[in-house]
């Protein structure tokens, strides 16, 4: 479903943020992307979603190259970034309608999905208010609702659990599972290893721009009784 082949990102000709990354994310799986701060997680997600271009390598989403066939590739996914920088002077409903228009969601579906997701995340009462009156958590919920609205094949999220209350975190986890049960794919980065451990079918660990592990949880743990946190700390420990 999502393939990265030799993806590299070099900033200013010297700083290697992501170094020859190979990933193959399958249809119907929840894929966790973990790594320490500055490891290259966000840069990788920004390359996958077309925000920045890779210096080297190829990214294909649902068989479409993000560079050569950008629009077809972008129709396959929606993205929730780590920073909630959206049009903040408009009303919440204006933002959701905008996203629905971009992904050509018909009126009946958009009404049904907006009502469902905003009620689940308890922001339905705030939809007629300006986004800049929202708290950080509410903005995050609005963006998640917007990303779920087109019912994409791949749901990509960068640190989605930051800023969400426990209730909303639970709902998000349930929605991720539901999305995969319906044949969709979820790719998300996180620092909350407990969530990754309980939710993901497979995980990738990135450290200093390089992929140091990519497998099922059991395989990453080498069938040991250690927690993912212990394994992660061991793997990303600097000599």
């Amino acid at each position, binding site marked *: 479903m999502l393939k990265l082949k030799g993806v590299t990102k070099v900033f200013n000709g010297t700083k290697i*943020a992501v170094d020859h990354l190979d990933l193959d994310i399958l249809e119907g799986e929840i894929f966790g992307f973990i790594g320490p701060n500055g490891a290259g997680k966000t840069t990788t997600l920004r390359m996958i979603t*077309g925000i920045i271009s890779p210096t080297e390598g190829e990214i294909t989403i649902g068989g479409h190259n993000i560079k050569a066939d*950008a*629009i077809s590739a972008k129709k396959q996914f929606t993205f929730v970034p780590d920073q909630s920088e959206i*049009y903040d002077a408009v009303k919440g409903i204006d933002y959701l309608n905008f996203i629905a228009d*971009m992904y050509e969601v018909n009126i009946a579906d958009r009404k049904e999905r907006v009502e469902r997701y905003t009620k689940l995340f308890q922001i339905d009462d705030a939809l007629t208010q*300006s986004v*800049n009156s929202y708290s950080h958590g509410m903005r995050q919920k609005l963006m998640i609702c917007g990303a779920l609205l087109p019912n994409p094949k791949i749901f990509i999220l960068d640190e989605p659990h930051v800023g969400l209350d426990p209730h909303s975190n639970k709902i998000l986890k349930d929605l991720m599972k539901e999305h995969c049960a319906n044949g969709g794919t979820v790719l998300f980065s996180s620092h909350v290893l407990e969530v990754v451990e309980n939710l993901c079918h497979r995980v990738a660990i990135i450290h200093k721009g390089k992929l140091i592990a990519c497998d099922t949880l059991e395989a990453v743990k080498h069938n040991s009784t250690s927690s993912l946190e212990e394994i992660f700390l061991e793997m990303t420990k600097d000599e």
Partner: protein
Amino acid sequence: MNKLLALTRIQLKDFFSKYTQQLNIKNKFLGKLMIFLPILILLPVIQIIKQLYDTFLLIGYPELIITYVYVGATMLAFFMAIPLVISIFFYSKDLSLIATLPVKEDTVVFSKLASVYVYLFGMGALLFGTSVVFYAFGDGFNLFYFLMGIVALLFLPVLPMIFATLVIMPFMAVIGGRSNRNMMVIIGNIVLLAVILGIQVVFTRVEMDPASLQKMVSQQDGLISLVGSKFPPSIWLTKMVRGSLLDTIWFLLLNLGFVVTLKLFAKRLYKNALLKYNQQSNTGKKGVIEYKQSSKKMLLIKRHLGIIIHNPTFLLNTVMTLFIPILLFGIYTAMGIMSLETLRNPMLEPFAIFIFIGIIVSPSIVGSLSATAITREGKAFWETRVLPISAEENISARIQTTILINGFATALLALGTFWILPLGALDILLAIVAAAAAIVCFATIDLIINIERPYLNWSNPTAAVKNNLNIMISLISRIVLGGIGYGLYKLIPDLSSRWMIGIFTILLLAVYVLGRKLVYGRYKQKFIDMNI
């Protein structure tokens, strides 16, 4: 909804909502009314257009108003478009969102230009629209002229906007992720100011010189060609408004050509400029770590200075407002309107001290730095609130920062001008005391305005220092004080200039004492209670 329309719609909604929110007006109706605020600022320009029209009518060529204002408005629109294009394409926070959406590159470029178009159309409506109204209504209402004028107005922003985009985008692609981006905004804005002032000067000169116009009129249809010779579309447009089909076709084809050109280059511009420019960069440079101890007050002043210096919009705004008299003098000298000799004219000698004070006090009059001292901090305002410093220290550091900047500007202007004007040592001393009184007075009372109206939730720095209503309230306070001073001058006829300045200085000091009492009294509590 069509993707182009949806993208354009949300950007325009965001643009207009931000504009009214930037004005920081709590009343909804008043907020909407404030959209028309620029009309007030442009009233003098409308007056100039009226006088210009009367001049052209007098010489029998009223249509020249269309040619003339179209050339001026197009130039102005071009230079206004430069910072707007830079701001909307390169400083906008929505690119990360837009880049992930399944939309074509030209859709992104055209939708982003929609808000530039609306902005330029607003300016065009005030300038060119006024000239159309004068022309169509001038000698009995002519519906055809009026309708064609509206068509011309609708097309007015297209050429300058697309031309500016085609110039800016490749340039920004070249400078890419380097730090020069801030410099570009500063240069663009300086050019804009120079052009605005230049156009004003050109208008004034034409208005003042009907004899030279009369001379040009002697040629058959030569006047339009002469005025429009440097910019042929203005000739086509003027003739289009008068009903020439051929010129209408030329004019429309030209506009269409620009749109098609932009569409052809849109993909390249998006990828090479927009996307490349917005790449996250990490220089990885390591600086020197220093451990120094400073006083709290010094640190706070350095912090406030740093907020201005490290933000290109704040820095540009501060520099431009502080040195407006020098900029004006430079431009007027370049246009041949004014020279050093003008200031040395013996006729001006009795007013020399007033001119000198006017020059050196101008940074405090137009600077209004304290009126946005809290606003400039934006969402980072909480930082000083949690530090172990008193509200007095927090407030006084802001006032002292303004005093420091304005004092520096005043000192520079005084050093640069005292030798030009015929002034004695006592005059200079008196002027410096008056300037010092003005600096402390305005720095203090402006902070009261900012405590009253903090407005911290801005999303772009221009909103914090330019569109904020605080600036206008602050300027009104100068007009009121100036009015009181002028009233005194009129009430006491035989007062010498030195006495006059002495009394005015006492007035400023009295306002300062009152302002200080307020700011460290009632407004200190308001500052403490301020909601973030």
